[in-house]
C-alpha cells in the first residue's frame, strides 16, 4: 500500500518537503514505517529512530498496524511551550 507521511520541523528541513510517499506491505506496522522511512530517505534515518509517529491525530507505537488510507505523521521531539 502507498502511505503518505507528514513531516515537521527538522524532518521537513532534512527532507526538503513536508510530506513523503512510501510503499509498504499491507498490514505494515509503525515499526516497519520507521525502518522504511530511513531506507528511502537516508537523511531521515537517524531522526526516524528517535521520532514518534502518529496515525491520524494519535501517537502510535511500533506494534501498531497502519490502517489503509491513514493520515501518518512523523513527530520529532516536540519543543512547544
Amino acid at each position, binding site marked *: 500500500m502507498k502511505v503518505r507521511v*507528514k513531516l*515537521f*520541523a*527538522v524532518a*521537513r*528541513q532534512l527532507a526538503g518537503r513536508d510530506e513523503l510517499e512510501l510503499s509498504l506491505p499491507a498490514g505494515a506496522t509503525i515499526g516497519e514505517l520507521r525502518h522504511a522511512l530511513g531506507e528511502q530517505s537516508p537523511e531521515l534515518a*537517524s*531522526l526516524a529512530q*528517535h521520532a514518534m509517529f*502518529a496515525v491520524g*491525530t*494519535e*501517537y502510535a507505537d511500533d506494534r501498531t498496524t497502519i490502517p489503509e488510507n491513514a493520515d501518518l*505523521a512523523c*513527530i*520529532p*521531539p*516536540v*519543543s*512547544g*511551550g
Partner: protein
Amino acid sequence: MVELTQTTIDTAEVLRCVSSPAAGAVVLFLGTAREFTAGRRTASLDYECYPAMAEKKLAELEAEARRRWPIVACAIVHRVGHLDLGEASVAVAVSAPHRHTAFEAGRWLIDTLKEVVPIWKKENWADGASKWVHPGLTQPNDECANDE
C-alpha cells in the same frame, strides 16, 4: 478553551475566559521568547505545529486537567509562526476555588504540553544561524541553515 493562533496572544482575553465568581484563584502562565539561552543570543523564534493533532492534544490536556483537579475554567492558547523577543508563545490559565489547585493544574498543563503537543520551536540566533529545537535529539549539525 484551547486555541492555536497566528497573532499576538491577548492575555486580558485569556484571563477573562477563566474568570468566574466560582473561582478564588487564577494562575496564568506565559512562556515568552527569551534573549539568551546558555549565553547565546536569540533574535527571534518560529513555531510550527501539526494543527489538527495539536488542537486535539490541547483539548485532551484540558479534559485531563478537569478530571484531575476541581478547576472552574481552563484556557490554553499557543501561538505559531514568527515571534519577536519578549513576545508570548503560550498562555495557560486556570481558575479554581483554591489557589493550590490552580497552581498545580497550571504547572501540570504547561509541563505536559511541552512533552506531548506536536509544536516545534526554531531558534533564530542573532549570529544568523537557525536551529529547530528537538530535546534529546542529536542533530547532524548543531547549526543548520535557515530553511525558510
